């Protein structure tokens, strides 16, 4: 990793805007930013919440193709809330998080678009409210629901067909009948949505959803 990478990822902006977060020595090839994330956040119709969390963000060398791993280090958020088996915060489905990173690889925007909303949600839960943006079921169920909503499907019965198309080359996929049941070929039906997703995340990502990563 060279200086240019740190600059490209917007680390400097992150450190400046959230000065209690600091780069930490790293033993491996990941980059670690840890400290206190202090924010005021609000979403429409809900009260402003000012809060601070002790967190650690580990940025893998494959970033932004791989998602940073975030931990809450003061044991404030219980295991029962959305956490992975490893204790990492489960900020969202991997596809959704990758999509956010595909739009902008800045770590500052990752923190503001994925980490702060998650913590904000937990603060609301702590004060007896409900999650403002909803939550996914755990496990495969949640992954499916999230993908279905990204493609714009009401139910996920046809989802598998779409994911297969996303794992194919565009040219090949466009010639096949659209799984949504209109009888049209994909090229004249759901092609825009699929092409955008495929371009942003790559065929291999969807292939790994089908077959596991190889």
């Amino acid at each position: 990793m060279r200086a240019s990478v740190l600059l490209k990822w917007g680390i400097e902006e992150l450190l400046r805007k959230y000065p209690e977060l600091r780069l930490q020595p790293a033993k491996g090839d990941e980059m670690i930013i840890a400290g206190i994330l202090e924010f005021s956040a609000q979403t429409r119709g809900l009260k402003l919440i000012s809060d601070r969390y002790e967190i650690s963000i580990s940025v893998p060398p494959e970033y932004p193709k791989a998602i940073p791993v975030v931990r809450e280090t003061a044991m404030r958020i219980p295991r029962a809330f959305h956490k992975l088996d490893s204790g990492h915060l489960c900020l969202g489905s991997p596809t959704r998080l990758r999509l956010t990173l595909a739009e902008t690889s800045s770590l500052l925007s990752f923190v503001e678009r994925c980490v702060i909303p998650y913590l904000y949600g937990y603060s609301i839960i702590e004060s007896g409210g409900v999650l403002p943006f909803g939550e996914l079921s755990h496990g495969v169920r949640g992954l499916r629901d999230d993908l279905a909503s990204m493609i714009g499907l009401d139910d996920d019965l046809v989802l598998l067909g779409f994911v297969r198309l996303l794992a194919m080359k565009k040219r090949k996929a466009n010639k096949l009948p659209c799984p949504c049941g209109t009888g049209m070929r994909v090229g004249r039906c759901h092609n825009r949505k699929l092409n955008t997703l495929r371009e942003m995340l790559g065929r291999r990502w969807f292939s790994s959803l089908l077959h596991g990563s190889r």
Partner: protein
Amino acid sequence: MANELVVKFLDSIIDSLDIPESYYRRAADRHRSLGEWLCRRESKVAVFQPHVTPQGSFRYGTVTRPLNAEGEYDLDNAVTLTLPKTQMTQKDLKTLFGEEIRAYAEAHQMLSPLEEMNRCWRLHYSDEITFHLDTLPCVAEEESVIAAIIGLGVPRELAKRAVAITDKRHPHYALISANWLSSNPRGFARWFEERTRSSALPRLRRLVEARLYSSVEDVPAYEWKTPLQRSIQLLKRHRDVMFQENPELAPISMILTNLATHSYNGESDIFTAVTGIVDRMPSFIRAGRPRVPNPADPAEDYADKWSKEPQLEQNFWSWHMQAKADLARLPDLLRGDRLSASVRQMFRLDLKQEQLLQFQSAPISVRSISYAAPAIAITSAPKPWGNQ
């Protein structure tokens, strides 16, 4: 000229990192005493006319207090012996020299055992100041090697100070051979002093006028207190704090000193100097090897470990970015209400009440920036998930 308050503030921070001058004098005494021992009549290395030259931060005047009271000061010297490389093996020279150092330790009732390092011997002093002295035996390089270094564009004045050193890891360590590792700590020190001295001259003249020294040449480096030296002290401290738990991952002082010296453009105030140094540092790291060459011997790479341990380079860049971000915040911090917490975080220093009053004369209520956490308007967000 940068914001006067920031300059005063940084000056006061660095003053508190300084060590008492008596420590520098003590260090000089140690070098002198060792030199006398090596030259005494019974010494086994006296025939090689040992010449002791101080090295490292005590020579450059860039020592900073250790982070905690138990911290040791590192003292370095090079002892140049006059003999051809082929007269004995590296191992024999290291051993012969080591016997003298061991005898010195015994004669001075030093309790801690002498330690053999890859290239030098380490003596542990334990009086009221905890020092360890790394003493590096070396022989003056032969003319052909010096000519080759000059051929790489190094001025003779620096190149002629090149030495051959012993290294336990060298394949010819125990063989009679002219193939020894080349190094040039004395040339580096000379280069550092040349680059530092010009900005020290006004102060040196004042010291001479005040009759503290008889001539400008007599003023030791720790008295120069140039913006470069003080910048190095500040950056080393920042590094020490950041890597307190993992010192083995920290960028080494020689890399910081080397890059800072290249990057210094003669700025006269500490804030402009240190921010300029940090900004320009990356441009003196070469893309290929040697990554951070000794200007007095370009084959000697201070960052030679980076290729085998890439995390060391990564940690350098992390340190660099954090230092840059911290320095950039200072002017705002002085106007805000988080100064003392931030100084503790960056430099592990506790500001005294009078320092706070001096730099933050306005009462908190009228200060322009009272810290406010960034405000985020969330319009949409990923839904939390879990793999359980």
